[in-house]
């Protein structure tokens, strides 16, 4: 027990290093889309495909700029990849001619405006955001 207590601070420091992304894990995001069909729900895998250059099912993704807190939460809770990996992935897609990264917005107001103005666009917002008429929450992160 004494040895355990002696090394507890060290263990806690190492835990912080090993699981840095869990800092953001308590937040939730709503994935929101401008659809003609309000009842549509998407799975986490479908959203990951849409945002990571896979099959989009006709949807156009829009993201917050890299470095924003809500983007970190989305990466952690939905995409499941660190920002550095996402950036290297898009470098691969862009310079192999396969696809280009989603459009970026810088704040919540811009995101809502973009979604309202673009039919079949899909983005994400912090849980609890007032969702205007015409937009649908298609996925709630765990």
């Amino acid at each position, binding site marked *: 027990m004494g040895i355990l207590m002696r090394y507890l601070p060290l263990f806690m420091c190492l835990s912080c290093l090993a699981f840095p992304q869990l800092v953001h894990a308590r937040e939730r995001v709503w994935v929101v889309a401008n659809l003609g069909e309000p009842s549509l729900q998407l799975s986490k895998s479908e959203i990951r495909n849409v945002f990571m250059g896979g099959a989009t099912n006709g949807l156009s993704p829009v993201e917050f700029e890299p470095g924003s807190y809500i983007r970190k939460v989305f*990466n952690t809770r939905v995409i499941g990849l660190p920002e*550095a990996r996402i950036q*290297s992935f898009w470098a691969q897609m862009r310079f192999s001619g396969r696809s280009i990264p989603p459009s970026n917005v810088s704040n919540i107001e811009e995101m809502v405006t973009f979604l309202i103005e673009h039919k079949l666009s899909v983005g994400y917002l912090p849980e609890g955001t007032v969702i205007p008429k015409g937009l649908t929450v298609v996925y709630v992160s765990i």
Partner: protein
Amino acid sequence: MVSRFTLLFIIESFISFGATAKTSNDLQFSGFARLVGGYLSTDEAKYEGYNNSVSFSEKSLAALQADYIINDYFSLSGQLLWHSDETRKSGVEWLYLTYQPNASWQFNLGQIRTPFLKYSDVIDVGFAYPWLNAPQQLYSSYLFSQYKGVNARYLGSFNEVAFSLEAYWGNYSDEIHSSGTAFDVTVDGMYGGVVEISYRGFQFRTATIHANDTDTDLTELDPLIQGLRAAGFPDTADILDIDGGATSYLFGISYDSLNWFASAEWMSVKSDLDILGGIDSFYVTFGYYFDEVLVHATVGSSRQSLNDIENPIPVGIAPQLDALHFAVEEVKTYFPTDDLDSLTLGARWDFRNDLALKAEVSFLKGKEGKTSFFELDVIGSDFDRRATLYQLGLEWVF
């Protein structure tokens, strides 16, 4: 060899361009650059162009890409590449027309890089992958890196599974450098395909290349080939006049998560070329993220088999025949036999979203008597084919 100052000037020019590049809805500029320095622990051989003095001229490069959107369906893309390695040509790397009738289908026509390994069509874009030097056993330059032809790609999904199917056809013509030897290679009617399947964090990838009509021109061998024909050894001459076909298969699997990733690729090349029996190579890599810092380890291995080249020329009958016999024996030692095991340890720090600093050390263990991807100053030297490669680099995209 390009001076370090020239290199820095060119990269700085690209940085200036990246900072001021204008884009419009129709025309977009992007690009990438890498500055990579390396040092090899031995003075008995070169590896990837590196020797036992610090060099920035082997892997450093800069590229500018322009994408012009013609209308909702068509776009035109071109990529200019400047490479510091004197064995690589600088100039137009990509130039193709894209037709995208909907979100699922994409067709390309023009000069396109060959999609085979996970990173083979972006091997110049160091920012796209974890290493400074992608596993040489698979990513060595003597596969057919680009072609002039057509490419079709389909994206689809089924429940939680996403997939992409890709097929291509075209012609290849380039100068290939392998183990210090240059070959002019042309391939007519090269074709292949790629299937990628993604399920949650897993990705499975399989690919193939068929190059059935390969013509290799080793001009240095022409006098010997003519001498062999004149001396009545046409079969041996035909062996050295390298024509034939090669087929490659790839299988890869990877898993990506928030904190770590693992990736492996296995490649097999089968050939009816007289000098090349086949190649089997693989790598396995594991990486762990500490926030913006990735640390990774990679084990790679390759085994290359040669078809036997029979040397029917008798010795001791005439001096001319002796000369021919020993010339054939010497040529045999130049053909690549790239058996190599390696362990690479590296770190990558993404200190900005568009800049990454990398450090890497590779422990190389080849086989005595084989080329093992080394370029030897003296064929038959007693170099034990063991060396350590140290590299430090900066990767940038804009």
